[in-house]
């Protein structure tokens, strides 16, 4: 494990940025967000960013290809180029797990080359959550916020940053910054881990369990009467899906620039009324069906297709951002509770 004192953290960022593009959470008047590091940018103290780290691999919008048309002829222009290696600093345990969830979708055959390109060129420096929030429930999904995954795990204490390489890529980076860091016996990190684990016990959602959910529960929950009440005041906006680190539904659209066509991919939300609308009909007519789809997908359909892995990482973003304060925790706690279930 390597250590650098916090008053020299700028040197660390500068050293990493000399080799790679470096992104880290910084404060804005709309909460923390990832920005590219430059001299003067200060690491945010917020627990997590408002938007998740999925943007790095699955951006809100990206160009897929261009078309040039002339008369009856079409030419496809491949606009892809290989990404340079980049470092994301300060990713929390929940968001690191979300990459695994996204991998299951985008790296399943046939692989998505746009995603794969960025994923393969990334280096993830994760950060333990010294002070989890009341909205956190990552432990429900077996995530340990005191020991996140990633290429390098970081622990930030009052005065120093400790870094432990978990992969070869991570070790290579630590090697490169060896001159500005010192060896550490890991005691401070262990101590922080212990504090974090004690704090987890105090969280109101610490005992939340997803045991009742899983790939084989479609029949049990699909017709649950609780959906009606749960979805009753849903506005049908896309906030929950857009701040969610695992939501990956997308739309493909064309934009006519006046001198060619750009085909782009952008985030889409199953909460939107036109998400499944076809000229021939609409299978999800009301907000109840759209709302149900989102949570069934996270808690039942996704595990069914992915060896039981839930498509929720307990980051709590939807808990704090939903305009009407309806969220996956309330869904999990309410579903199956009612006596008249499966009517």
């Amino acid at each position: 494990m390597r250590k650098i004192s916090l008053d020299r953290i700028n040197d660390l960022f500068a050293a990493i940025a000399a080799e790679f593009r470096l992104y880290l959470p910084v404060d804005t008047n709309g909460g923390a967000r990832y920005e590219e590091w430059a001299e003067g940018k200060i690491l945010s103290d917020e627990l997590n960013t408002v938007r998740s780290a999925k943007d790095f691999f699955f951006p809100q919008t990206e160009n897929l290809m261009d078309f040039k048309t002339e008369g009856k002829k079409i030419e496809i222009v491949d606009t892809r180029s290989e990404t340079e290696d980049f470092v994301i600093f300060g990713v929390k345990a929940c968001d690191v797990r979300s990459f695994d969830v996204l991998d299951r979708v985008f790296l399943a055959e046939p692989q998505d080359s746009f995603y794969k390109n960025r994923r393969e060129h990334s280096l993830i420096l994760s950060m333990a959550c010294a002070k989890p929030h009341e909205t956190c429930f990552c432990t429900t999904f077996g995530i340990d916020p005191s020991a996140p995954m990633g290429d390098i795990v970081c622990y930030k204490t009052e005065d120093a940053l400790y870094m432990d390489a978990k992969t070869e890529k991570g070790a290579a980076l630590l090697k490169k910054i060896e001159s500005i860091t010192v060896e550490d016996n890991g005691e401070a990190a262990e101590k922080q881990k212990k504090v974090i684990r004690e704090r987890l016990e105090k969280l109101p959602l610490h005992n939340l369990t997803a045991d009742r959910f899983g790939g084989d529960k479609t029949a049990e929950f699909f017709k649950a009467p609780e959906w009606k009440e749960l979805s009753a005041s849903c506005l049908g906006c896309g906030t929950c899906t857009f701040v969610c680190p695992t939501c990956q539904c997308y739309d493909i659209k064309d934009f006519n620039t006046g001198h060619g066509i750009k085909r782009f991919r952008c985030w889409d939300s199953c909460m939107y009324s036109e998400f499944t609308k076809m000229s021939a009909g609409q299978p999800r007519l009301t907000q109840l069906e759209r709302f149900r789809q989102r949570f069934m997908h996270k808690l039942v359909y996704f595990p069914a297709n992915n060896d039981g892995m839930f498509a929720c990482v307990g980051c709590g973003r939807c808990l704090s951002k939903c305009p009407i304060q309806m969220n996956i925790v309330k869904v999990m706690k309410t579903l199956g509770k009612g006596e008249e279930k499966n009517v």
Partner: protein
Amino acid sequence: MQAVTREILINKAAELLGNGTVDRVFGWKKGEFSYDVTPALFTTREAMDADFVFGDFCGANFSKYLVAETRKEGKVLVFLKPCDTYSFNQLLTEHRFDREKVYVVGIPCSGMLDTVKIKAVAEGIASVEDNGDRVTVHSLFDGDVTVSRNDMLPDRCKNCKSKKHVAYDELIGEDGEVIDSGRFDEVEKLEKMTPDERFAFWQNELSRCIRCNACRDVCPACTCEKCVFDNPDSGVENKAAANSFEEKMFHIIRAFHVAGRCTDCGECSRVCPQHIPLHLLNRKFIKDINEFYGDYQAGAEVGSRAPLVNYTADDPEPAEAVERSHHDA
């Protein structure tokens, strides 16, 4: 602290349910924490005793829900704060629901707390206690922090335009007055900036937009069955926050579409996950309308003619108007 208590509201609702005045009650349901209150329907006293809450985090404007609620059978009871009643009237003016199917109980409001501001006070909120002019935040790890209640109010409550109910069937507590709390101060501050500064300000704010549509979907003035931004034939349909143009386009057009109809309830800014001060766009229109065409408050009375569907022969010319919006300040 709110002037009415949960018990008073439950008793009133139970009474109206009991005597058959209403069939259901639109109210607030408690959540996991002290602040995550969800709008919900109740039909029995038992359900209300179990889950109904009222307090500092009941800021959601219920008026828009009435469009869907009144399409159902029976009559619904809705509790409206003074600012909600303006939206209520505006929706009635636009014939968006049947007045006969709603029973309005007006309730006083002393300003709702801003969750974002509360969360900035302490990390890991265990609970929030309101002691009148002070608010104590109990943190999971940092002990208690006590702050001034006024500092925890969102902009929309700090700049409250009215404590007076403009629509109700019944009122609980005392009715207030229309007040002047300087709601255009922020707009004026922006107007006094140079164009470059204004551009930088809005560029910074609007570039955070993620096009989640929460502002639109919560807005009581946005009740179109199909929004122009969802219509593939409109030429402006665009889900993606593709580049800085799209967000500007969306927010300018949305603000324009509600201009003259926006009651300044501030829901757009409350729900924005990126904390964009969207109400400053709407307030600019309100301020301009007041200055160019005389004072107008959308929703103050049912049936008033909105300024954009009205005119006089001596309205200012656009160039003159833009000039005036700066120097009248």
